[in-house]
């Protein structure tokens, strides 16, 4: 049976750099609730085997590539630092910025404090103890143990809580940006989003680092959507050329609520993203959008899980990827519907462009169905650009390289056009064009 899980460990399994001593540092000076959560996550983390190349989940991405042991957990100061405005910030209501020196939360539109809360997790644990108690670490399904979800739960070094109250909405949305310029360090961001009944907002996240600076990031985001809430996330993994990224996104979606999780993987050298949604009450729906483009020996691995634990639930997934210049991408997805869940609609599509023969894309879609009555489809395509499309554009005077660029951008447009922030769409176009321009890089 296809699964995304690692087996349980017979004795405590620790990854280099993430042990009891580091846990103590992480816990020190924190509210009791967070200390307890970290300890519980640490226990769970040690009880799951360390990833190995022979595990099903890692058959196409050797965990040695994560280079555990070469990164030290950053100790990010909890005190706020000065906020450095950037031109793109005007497109958001709230901008959260994180560097190894500290964090800044800038409420540009005066939206927080009332119906919208944007806080560090430490502050939220004091101000909204029961909410954090109930939600932090619980979006994940217990039968799907996640090593890196738990690792992040124990060791996260920067954490935020975003809460949007009943029927509240944010006109422009929130930007969370992470920048790490410290060689040999690990950033472990944690995000907890809770959206109350009818709440609506969009969130953008971006990860950047300078080229040539080795960093590791183990990110974890949790989304809890109350009935009729509508939350969109666009995450852009835009690390410099030697960044390593591991990410876990988990959403729990209640009645009539809708989540859109966009996962865009373009930067770094090795990246492993897992995105899961649990549509757990009737008429809950989820859209998983993915875009990845691996070039110059980048190795990107993405996993999706569409879990239907209630009848009349809906999920749609579209991941589009391209590879060139010895890039390697892996997509693996699972649709799962529990027994007695009738009226489930679940779709899974993965399209890949293999732009040269030295590059590789693997696609493994699968269904695990216990339910009897559902509409499901899954499919994958693999191929180079269509020669007839290329010829058509060229017959209009467009040069071959330009025509190729247009076709690759056009291929990704199906995902990009749904992205809620224009600035994010612009940045996606820009990075893709850079990857297609043989002279702009190196």
């Amino acid at each position, binding site marked *: 049976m296809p699964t995304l899980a690692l087996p349980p460990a017979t004795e405590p399994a620790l990854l280099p750099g993430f042990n009891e001593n580091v846990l103590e540092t992480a816990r020190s000076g924190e509210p009791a609730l967070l200390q307890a959560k970290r300890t519980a996550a640490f226990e769970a983390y040690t009880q799951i085997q360390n990833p190995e190349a022979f595990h099903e989940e890692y058959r196409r991405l050797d965990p040695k590539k994560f280079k555990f042991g070469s990164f030290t957990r950053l100790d990010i100061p909890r005190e706020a630092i000065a906020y450095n405005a950037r031109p793109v910030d005007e497109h958001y209501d709230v901008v959260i910025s994180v560097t190894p020196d500290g964090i800044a939360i800038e409420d540009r539109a005066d939206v927080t404090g009332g119906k919208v809360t944007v806080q560090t997790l430490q502050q939220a644990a004091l101000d909204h103890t029961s909410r954090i108690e109930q939600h932090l670490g619980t979006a994940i399904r217990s039968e799907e143990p996640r090593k890196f979800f738990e690792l992040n739960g124990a060791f996260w070094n920067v954490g935020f809580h975003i809460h949007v109250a009943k029927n509240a909405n944010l006109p422009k949305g929130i930007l969370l940006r992470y920048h790490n310029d410290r060689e040999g360090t690990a950033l472990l961001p944690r995000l907890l989003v809770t959206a109350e009944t009818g709440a609506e907002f969009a969130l953008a996240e971006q990860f950047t680092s300078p080229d040539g600076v080795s960093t590791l990031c183990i990110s974890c985001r949790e989304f809890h959507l109350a009935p009729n809430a509508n939350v969109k996330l666009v995450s852009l993994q835009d690390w410099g050329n030697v960044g390593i990224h591991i990410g876990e996104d988990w959403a729990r979606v209640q009645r009539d609520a809708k989540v859109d999780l966009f996962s865009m993987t373009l930067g770094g050298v090795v990246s492993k993203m897992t995105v899961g949604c649990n549509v757990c009450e009737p008429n809950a729906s989820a859209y998983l959008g993915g875009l990845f483009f691996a070039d110059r020996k980048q190795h990107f691995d993405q996993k999706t899980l569409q879990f239907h634990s209630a009848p009349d639930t809906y999920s749609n997934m579209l991941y589009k990827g391209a590879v060139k210049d010895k890039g390697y991408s892996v997509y693996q997805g699972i649709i799962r519907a529990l027994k007695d869940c009738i009226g489930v609609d679940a779709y899974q599509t993965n399209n890949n462009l293999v732009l040269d023969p030295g590059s590789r894309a693997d696609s493994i879609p699968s269904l695990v169905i216990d339910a009897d009555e559902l509409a499901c489809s899954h499919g994958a395509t693999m191929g180079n650009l*269509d*020669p*007839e*499309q290329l*010829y*058509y*554009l*060229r*017959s*209009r*005077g*467009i*040069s*071959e390289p*330009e*025509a190729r660029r*247009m*076709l690759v*951008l*056009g*291929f*990704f*447009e*199906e995902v990009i*056009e749904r992205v809620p922030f224009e600035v994010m769409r612009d940045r996606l176009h820009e990075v893709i064009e850079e990857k297609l321009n043989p002279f702009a890089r190196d």
Partner: protein
Amino acid sequence: MADLEIKNLHAEIDGISILKGVNLEINKGEVHALMGPNGSGKSTLSSVIMGHPDYEVTEGDIVLDGESILEMDPEERAKAGLFLCFQYPVAVPGVSISNFLKKAMDARHPEGKAPAGPFLKEMRENMAFLEMEPAFANRGLNEGFSGGEKKRMEILQMMMFKPGMVIMDETDSGLDIDALQIVAKGVNKMRGADMGLLVITHYERILTHIAPDRLHILMDGRVVMSGGPELVTKLEEKGYDWVREETAATA
């Protein structure tokens, strides 16, 4: 010397010989019709003129404005003033009409960038002329278009690019009378001393809307008969069998 000369053109695809010595001469200001039964090589001829990479020219030449274009890529031929109205325009999802037209206009501009203002104005005017909604420009190129919409899109491009030599490959096929009239309206607007036109068709119908100066009949990869407009009526009455008999007699 004619503005477009097709001289003893032989071409093949996958080693199969399709064109077996086509001769044609078209000048700017003239409208020529090319008719022929299905499979006679009409689309092959247009593909070979435009430079489709799958076809190989094994003999003969295509000369545009005094220069052989055989060694040119399709984009160079387009910029030299050739335009092909495709029989089956391919859909390019994710590439909007406006973006596509802008890129094609940029490619023709001496500085590589067509100024946006005049470009948009011209696009909107031409679209209005062809009775296309302005919002249509945001749609993916030929994506989910009806037959009529695709052909209008081809004519819109012709109007934007202002080519010197146009080949229309069965632009009339699958069009209802209203769509055909709009297409003819666009073509007749462009018609003039600066443009030569080769109308490839299977039916006489389009030729009542776009009156040709000359008619050629293609059979089995060769132009077997040429004549004035009166040949259209004759062909209508007597059919291709008559052409076969006539050419067999002279052969």
